[in-house]
């Protein structure tokens, strides 16, 4: 029988793989898609909690929908920033960008 813990451990594993990718990648695009992976693992956790802990109400499922909206906004903005950075520098060396530092 699948328990809640199965989903939580899977979500944690996906989160950590995404975290590793976001920390070590020097390509701006790969950082963005690793962040997408992190958000997806959180989505999985929320849906699992919703299904197992409070199946009567679909509250966690609503959170997943909100997270998808936030992720779509985030990826849109991030890709726009990447296109802008691509005009002036090398987006494959994201650790050398300092211009967003304010």
């Amino acid at each position, binding site marked *: 029988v699948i328990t809640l813990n199965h989903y939580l*451990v899977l979500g944690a594993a*996906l989160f950590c793989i995404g975290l590793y990718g976001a*920390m070590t*990648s020097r390509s701006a695009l790969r950082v963005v*898609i690793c962040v997408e992976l992190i958000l997806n693992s959180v*989505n999985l956790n929320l849906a699992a909690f919703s299904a197992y802990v409070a199946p009567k109400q679909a509250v966690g499922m609503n959170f997943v929908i909100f997270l*998808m909206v936030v992720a779509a906004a985030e990826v*849109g903005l991030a890709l726009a920033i990447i296109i802008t950075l691509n005009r002036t520098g090398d987006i494959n060396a994201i650790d050398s960008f300092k*211009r967003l530092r304010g």
Partner: protein
Amino acid sequence: MTIVFFYLYAVMALAGALGLVMARNLIHAVMSLLATLVAIAALFLLLGSQFLAAMQLFVYGGAITVLVLFVLMLTGPQPEAGGRSKESIRLLSVGLCVVFFGAITWIIAQANWQVTVPQLHDTASIATILFSRYVLPFEIAGLSLTIALIGAVVLAREDDVMDAPMPEPLPEDPAPSPELADEAGEPA
């Protein structure tokens, strides 16, 4: 029977995630991400939410993957798969992530949730809550999405269209070599 499918999709999701991190070619990385997203959509189905599975496929599998691929093509060739970080940084990151994963797993093992049997969430039950209790966050989410996408359009515009002065080029920028400038000047 479900446990077989759970492990099938879990392995698929993990393999896709590892491929995303390991792949040298960024297009392969995006395709690996697609495998993970589809596997997570299948896991949503196992959790009994058909609506979320469909949304996962539409929004992530469709829109976001195509958007990332589109930008990948727009920004030109990606030499050396975006480069690799220094060995020390990678080792440190692996250690940090393993410790973090261990900590989360330990907490999950310790926790004692009041677990019940999962049941099918039909779309109506999601919509009932979304449009009653969470109607204000729903509106705010729509507004923030609109603002973010308008901001994305403004950011991605060509610089010479904008009134703002051009930003200074980065010091790392390779200056145009004098030979190239001479060659360009010769025919004139």
